């Protein structure tokens, strides 16, 4: 095995050297006191925290913190959403719509789903079918395809397109189920339409993210390899988030990295989203036995939970953030602005036949 050589070693090494050298040259070497300051400060903080927690007032602070994050005060059921709109969720128990008053409707045994641009219809997939439904669960049309996944719907009220993955390829079909065509090889990552005019979709292929103009039939941008696990556009369509647990990147329309965030070795990210109407990211970072939700730019902590937090979904308007928390079988709604408020809802898997993925929170009706 010592004699083994992997394919394309030389080319791969030179490509990587360019990237690694650029990172090395832009780093800022630190001096000795700064190099040792973090462990010293961390040690002092740990000692202070231990001393504080062991004291009677310290225990009281910990107790009130625990109460404040809502773990003990979670509603026993999801009685209502804290903001307007309707939430679409999918999972083992099928696809559901949750209304603002807490009422729920199961659309059927679909494994992925997406709202139409106006929120009047839902695209969903079964084992071998792409389906368009109304919010009551009535089927409008179906398209038989092998293992379709990840529908994404875009367009105007009169002219829409659905992108989805099937048979290892990205497909695009009109909103009435006609004119389906395969675009090219795609990995099993949800494609995302760029907001705004034109029909431009970002999808993952060969370990890269590709931005493709469906009408013009040309690739507009291709990121370096990075095995994306999730893609997302900012609301103005100017920035593309390429999410990976070990390092996220944000690209502008010319393919330049405008933001990168790499978790340190003992941590990884579970999810990241753009806050609506902004270029600000909100990130879930898992470290050891706990997870933090924080804003990317200033590191402001929005929520901390034990175990693994999984997903972030903003309400329409962006005032509330849904944090899904499978470890606690809860959903946590965090009011992002002031005053800070946290609302928990328990027994989530019992209400949806399994712990679901929150797809999106749509359209303020």
């Amino acid at each position, binding site marked *: *095995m*010592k*004699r*083994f*050589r*992997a*394919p*394309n*070693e030389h080319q*791969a*090494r030179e*490509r*990587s*050297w360019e*990237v*690694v*050298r650029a*990172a*090395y*040259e832009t*780093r800022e*070497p*630190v001096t000795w006191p700064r*190099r040792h300051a*973090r462990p010293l400060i961390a040690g002092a903080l740990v000692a202070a925290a231990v001393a504080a927690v062991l004291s009677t007032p310290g225990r009281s602070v910990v107790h009130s913190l625990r109460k404040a994050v809502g773990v003990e005060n979670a509603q026993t059921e999801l009685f209502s959403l804290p903001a307007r709109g309707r939430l679409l969720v999918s999972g083992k128990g099928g696809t559901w719509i949750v209304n603002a008053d807490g009422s729920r409707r199961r659309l059927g045994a679909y494994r992925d789903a997406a709202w139409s641009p106006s929120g009047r219809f839902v695209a969903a997939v079964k084992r071998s079918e792409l389906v368009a439904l109304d919010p009551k669960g009535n089927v409008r049309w179906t398209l038989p395809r092998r*293992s379709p996944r990840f529908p994404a719907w875009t367009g105007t009220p009169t002219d829409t397109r659905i992108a989805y993955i099937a*048979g*290892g*390829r990205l497909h695009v079909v009109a909103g009435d189920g006609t004119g389906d065509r395969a675009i090219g*090889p*795609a*990995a*099993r*990552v949800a494609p995302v339409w760029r907001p705004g005019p034109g029909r431009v979709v970002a999808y993952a*292929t*060969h*370990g890269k993210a590709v931005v493709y103009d469906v009408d013009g039939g040309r690739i507009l941008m291709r990121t370096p*390899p*990075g*095995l994306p696990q999730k893609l997302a556009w900012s609301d103005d369509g100017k920035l593309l988030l390429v999410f990976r*647990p*070990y*390092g996220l990147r944000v690209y502008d329309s010319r393919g330049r990295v405008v933001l990168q965030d*790499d978790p*340190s*070795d003992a941590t990884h990210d579970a999810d990241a989203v753009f806050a609506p109407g902004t270029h600000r990211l909100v990130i879930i970072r898992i470290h050891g036995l706990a997870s933090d939700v924080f804003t990317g730019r200033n590191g402001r902590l929005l929520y901390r939970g034990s175990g693994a937090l999984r997903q972030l979904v903003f309400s329409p308007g962006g005032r509330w953030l849904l944090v899904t928390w499978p470890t606690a079988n809860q959903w946590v709604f965090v009011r992002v602005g002031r005053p800070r408020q946290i609302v928990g809802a328990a027994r989530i898997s019992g209400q949806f036949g399994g712990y679901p993925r929150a797809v999106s929170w749509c359209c303020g009706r």
Partner: protein
Amino acid sequence: MAASGRDERAWVRRAQAGSVSEFEALFRAHWGPAYRAAYLVVRDASAAEDIAQEAFLSAVRTLDRFDRRRPFGPWLHRIVVNRAIDWARARALRPEAEAVDTPAPERPEHDEELLRELDRLSPEHRAVIVLRYLLEYTPGEIAELLELPRGTVNSRLRRGLDHLKERLE
């Protein structure tokens, strides 16, 4: 390129001080083994390149805090192998992506049969075999690298080798 421990410590020290050429020496000495180890675990050249590159980027980020008394290789290999195991596990959950994203090797100059059989092992078993027989760590060192009990490393090695022997005989 083989480097003595003294060379390596000097490269790290000078790289910490900002020398690109010393950092390049460190990179070139360790890139090959890191890339090969990742490739043998994930069997996907793009993913292996990405994993090895990420490990070096991680090295750049933590270079200033790196303890020069410790060897660089094991630290790098720990990151590479753990990420490769994570990637291989994730790929097992999305086989369709595998079919699309795996380019065929251009130059199969190695023992394809051995690689094919290695591929049948779980990522965890592949990783210990790669650490033992490609990177030549002792079982004790592998246990430390992967934070596993020594007995687990020995049993994974034994089971992996038994499988390979049985299939290749």
